């Protein structure tokens, strides 16, 4: 590989990670244009077994975050593999969703994995296929601190 193609490979990897990060921050800011900007228009996604076809259907599902007082989608491990103008990425995330349960605040969280296929379109990486699985979930009451 020439130096410039090695630089391009690194730049692709960084750009792909940025797309996934943009998706999560879009969710947490409830900026659904930002969420939509991460996908091809004909994206096919499977969220916990539910198949969503097209970017509008996918964005509609993500609007569900509006029911929570606060959400954080926290990114961890990522593995990216680039092949020319396509790429695959696996990303770990945990979500933290502040809910009301029987009149008390609680945090719902999930251990999530995202498997993405991406394509380069007009110089921009976009997610064209996605499968999201939830590995575990839990609900924790929000207890007052030592100082109340």
């Amino acid at each position, binding site marked *: 590989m020439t130096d410039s193609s090695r630089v391009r490979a690194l730049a692709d990897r960084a750009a792909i990670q940025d797309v996934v990060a943009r998706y999560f921050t879009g969710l947490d800011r409830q900026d659904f244009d930002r969420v939509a900007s991460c996908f091809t228009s004909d994206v096919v996604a499977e969220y916990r077994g539910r198949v969503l076809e097209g970017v509008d259907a996918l964005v509609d599902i993500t609007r569900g975050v509006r029911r929570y007082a606060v959400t954080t989608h926290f990114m961890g491990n990522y*593995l990216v593999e680039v092949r020319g103008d396509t790429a695959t990425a696996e990303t770990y995330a945990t979500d933290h969703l502040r809910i009301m349960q029987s009149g008390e605040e609680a945090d719902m969280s999930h251990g999530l994995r995202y498997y993405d296929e991406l394509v380069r379109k007009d110089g921009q990486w976009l997610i064209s296929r996605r499968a999201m699985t939830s590995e575990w979930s839990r609900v924790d009451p929000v207890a007052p601190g030592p100082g109340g």
Partner: protein
Amino acid sequence: MSAASDPVLQELLDKAEISDVITRYALGIDRHDFDLAASCYATDAQADFYGVVSKGVDAIVKGLRLLEQLDNTMHFLGNQMIDLHGDTAGVETYATAYYRAVMPDRQIDMIKGLRYLDGMARKDGRWVVQSQVVVEHWSRNDPVLPLSTPPAGRKPGPKPPVWPKDAGLDYLIDRAAIRDLLARYYSTSDHRDYDGMAATYTPDAEVWYREDLCVGIEAIRKKVSLLDNAITSTHFMGNHLVDIQGDTAASETYVIEYIRAGPVGEETDLVSGLRYLDQMVRRDGKWLTSARTVTSDWGRRDPVTPAPT
């Protein structure tokens, strides 16, 4: 600054160095190494921690020293977005802070969802934090049920590397390859792909898993395959710093480990804050882990109330 002739490469180098500054900062405050934390700031930096403003690095560090009152802290870094403009940059970093408070009769974990908004500047050829705003998005206080085998306590990690003055393309590629090696290790372990897991080690690797020493790949495989007893496991990777010297490297990685175990209806999550202190070697052009110490800084046992589906 080692100005790269390729502007794309220069941007990648700048972003990697900036990211490492934020990681060194987190490592500094978690280790109570306030010289390390201070080295991440410009001397005339300004910081705003939850609305409390400090001016100058000395005042900032004085504020950070409040963390010494806690038994243990882990500032675990996640999503990061860097907006680069020549010699300045805006950085947004997600962090989850785990603060363990030990009281005579009980222990509490204060867990906070934070966002760091850092204005960075290149000064004298290196990136430093010029202005910092820390925003709290959520926080929660969890009573701690200790693990049946409590963590042995914090072990110091290696001295964190400084960004090498001559960092270039090869350095970035090695840094990325070592991160991939780690992500592959956690992913294969969580998927119970023990062949894939074993392929991340040298055959003669030595690993301290908490208090147990495993020598050689078969002993390691036996140890890691204990994950078969879990319902599910997640090894969630955060902060990572690596010191690369030719064909060897030393790295430190933060990991939150979630192990779900127990009979149906009575599941428990064993949650631990781990650090992986690793030695890697390059063999036939591939990076492999040759020695590893897994240290547990904190742990807790959480009975599971599953989320409604």
